[in-house]
């Protein structure tokens, strides 16, 4: 997640002790009684909840409405002034801003849209595959130094990316591949590994050992056990980390800014640049920001279930 939340960072097996001691199932009547006695019954409480909900929604609504208004209107009046017009049918909306920001000379976001996909897809597949293999070894292959190595990998989550950027960059320059997609893929993959290994290892440990033992008795090797026994059971876990990594890479600014050349920069970099150079052109900025947001929003809303599950596994369960 963009330097966005990386839940689970050093979360560890922390909260297990407050898992419910097999709570008694409440009857529906009792539940309803609790609900009505609940805090939303007081007008103050509902007031506060509504204020928070509104504060968290209005800024995005403003952006979305503005992005569809004609440039001149945006300059002359606030987006809330269209609200009466929506009901009378007088409000004027247009897709011009999107056209200009996607294909116009000043920004050409359509190209960077492609770049974002080309960067993100391998940067999700590669680290997850590597992390799955490593997590399998740490969970199910006994070897010397296993504990130490796992703790070391876990500890690497502490390292801020900033510490690694300059030395990596100078290597890429020396090899003559700086600014290409390859360095971006490599960098994203490396930076994702500690958290990915840690989380997937936790999921893998949850699988009953008897399953693995049974397969081993049947003569299956590690590769077979991994693909035939564990992999199918891990699909939800992989999905939840996959969404994390997707959002993180898609929304990343630091890696894109440091390692891509202008022709291959992702959309976040282009939009950030737009904000720097055309700070007052809200018709471009609002449309650009929305274009950059649309893919993660779709992924996020469609797969929210997996996402929450992964987040809780990282942050709460450990």
């Amino acid at each position, binding site marked *: 997640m*963009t*330097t966005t*939340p*990386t*839940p689970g*960072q*050093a*979360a*560890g*097996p*922390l909260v297990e*002790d407050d*898992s419910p001691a097999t709570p008694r199932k409440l009857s529906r009547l009792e539940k309803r009684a609790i609900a009505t006695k609940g*805090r939303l019954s007081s007008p103050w409480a509902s007031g506060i*909840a509504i204020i*928070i909900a509104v504060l*968290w929604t209005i*800024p995005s609504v403003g952006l979305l409405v503005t992005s569809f208004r004609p440039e001149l209107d*945006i*300059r002359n009046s606030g987006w*809330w002034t269209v609200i009466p017009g929506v009901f009378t049918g007088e409000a004027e909306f247009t897709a011009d801003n999107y056209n200009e920001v996607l294909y116009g000379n000043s920004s050409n976001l359509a190209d960077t849209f*492609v770049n974002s996909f*080309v960067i993100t897809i*391998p940067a999700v597949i590669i680290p997850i595959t590597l*992390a799955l*293999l*490593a997590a399998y070894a740490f969970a199910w*292959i006994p070897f010397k130094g*296993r504990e130490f190595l796992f703790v070391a990998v876990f500890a690497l989550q*502490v*390292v*801020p990316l900033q*510490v*690694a*950027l*300059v*030395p990596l960059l100078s290597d890429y320059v020396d090899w003559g591949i700086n600014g*290409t*997609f*390859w360095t971006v893929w490599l960098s994203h993959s*490396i930076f994702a*590994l500690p958290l990915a290994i840690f989380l997937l290892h936790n999921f893998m440990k949850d699988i009953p050992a008897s399953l693995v033992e049974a397969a081993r008795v049947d003569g299956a*090797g*590690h*590769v077979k056990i991994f693909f035939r026994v564990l992999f199918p059971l891990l699909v939800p876990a992989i999905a939840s980390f996959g969404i994390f990594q997707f*959002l993180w890479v898609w*929304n990343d*600014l630091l890696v894109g800014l440091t390692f891509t050349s202008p022709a291959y920069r992702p959309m*976040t970099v282009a939009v*950030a640049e737009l*904000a*720097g150079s055309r700070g007052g052109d809200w018709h471009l900025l609002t449309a650009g*920001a929305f274009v*950059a*947001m649309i893919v993660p*929003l779709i992924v996020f*809303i469609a797969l929210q279930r997996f996402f929450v599950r992964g*987040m*809780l596994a990282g*942050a709460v369960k450990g």
Partner: protein
Amino acid sequence: MSWLLEPSGATEKFLVMFVAILLFVAVMSLVLFVVDRPKRIPNWVVAIGFVGVPLAFLLYGLIRPTLITVWNSFFDDTSTEFVGLDNYVTAFTQPQFQKVLLVTAAWVILAPLLSTVIGLVYAVLVDRTRFEKAAKALVFIPMAISMVGASIIWGFVYEFRPEQAGIQQIGLLNQVLVWLGMPPQQFLIGQPWNTGFLIVVMIWIQTGFAMTVLSAAIKAIPDDIVEAARLDGLHGMQMFRFITVPSIRPALVVVLTTIAMATLKAFDIVRTMTGGQFGTQVVANEFYTQAFRQNNQGLAAALAVVLFILVIPIIVYNVGQMRKAEDIR
């Protein structure tokens, strides 16, 4: 073969992408095939097949660069002359950088605290209500938005137009001020409050995370505890203070430390909204400025190390809490 390094046009770009994925799959398959072939093979060879590549990545891309950066932080701006602790002295004594540290401290204290408090209050308020799902989704969605996107959203809320006849405010917050009969403000310029207005963006993003984790923790509080407290006559605030908060303490620690770490490393918001001007600079963005704009590699390295060192106490506290939790168990 130059298109492999420099593809032009969408088709070539996607082609390179598929080549990269296929190459990766091929290499990994080969490694697994090799370690799986012979019948009597020592475990450590198999283990290397599984962990070798990931560990090599980490050794090359995280451990080695970290050591180099620590080393470089003792050298001058071109990494040629040894200067001892000079870069650190600069970072901690020059007023300009002291200010940066101070602003960073404000971020690391305020953003986690306020996101957690708001997330907790909201989670408690909407818990077990009819609208719980929808209400949570509203606060949750900003998590999907990049910090750059969030910065633009809020930059628009803060937009300022000078107070003149015939000119309307287009930023919502200034319009609210005008409605209330106050003069419009340049929210991103006036020190020191502008840092506060930037931190708001971080809080807006992180509250959804805090709310989701804390809400799950609240739901895990055993019902008999809640009921017993209720029979004892606890209500409303008392229930919150004496039952809810102590029961979810471990989750609170996780949320606070996770957000603190994310905040410490984040530079996107400051960079997009003010570029670090007007006294809003933070360590993570100052690092970027020094490394790639000023080309002062020594100072940049020192700042990165400072960032690293600042994370450590948070982690130590977190691990300490973990130990405690395990002891109780």
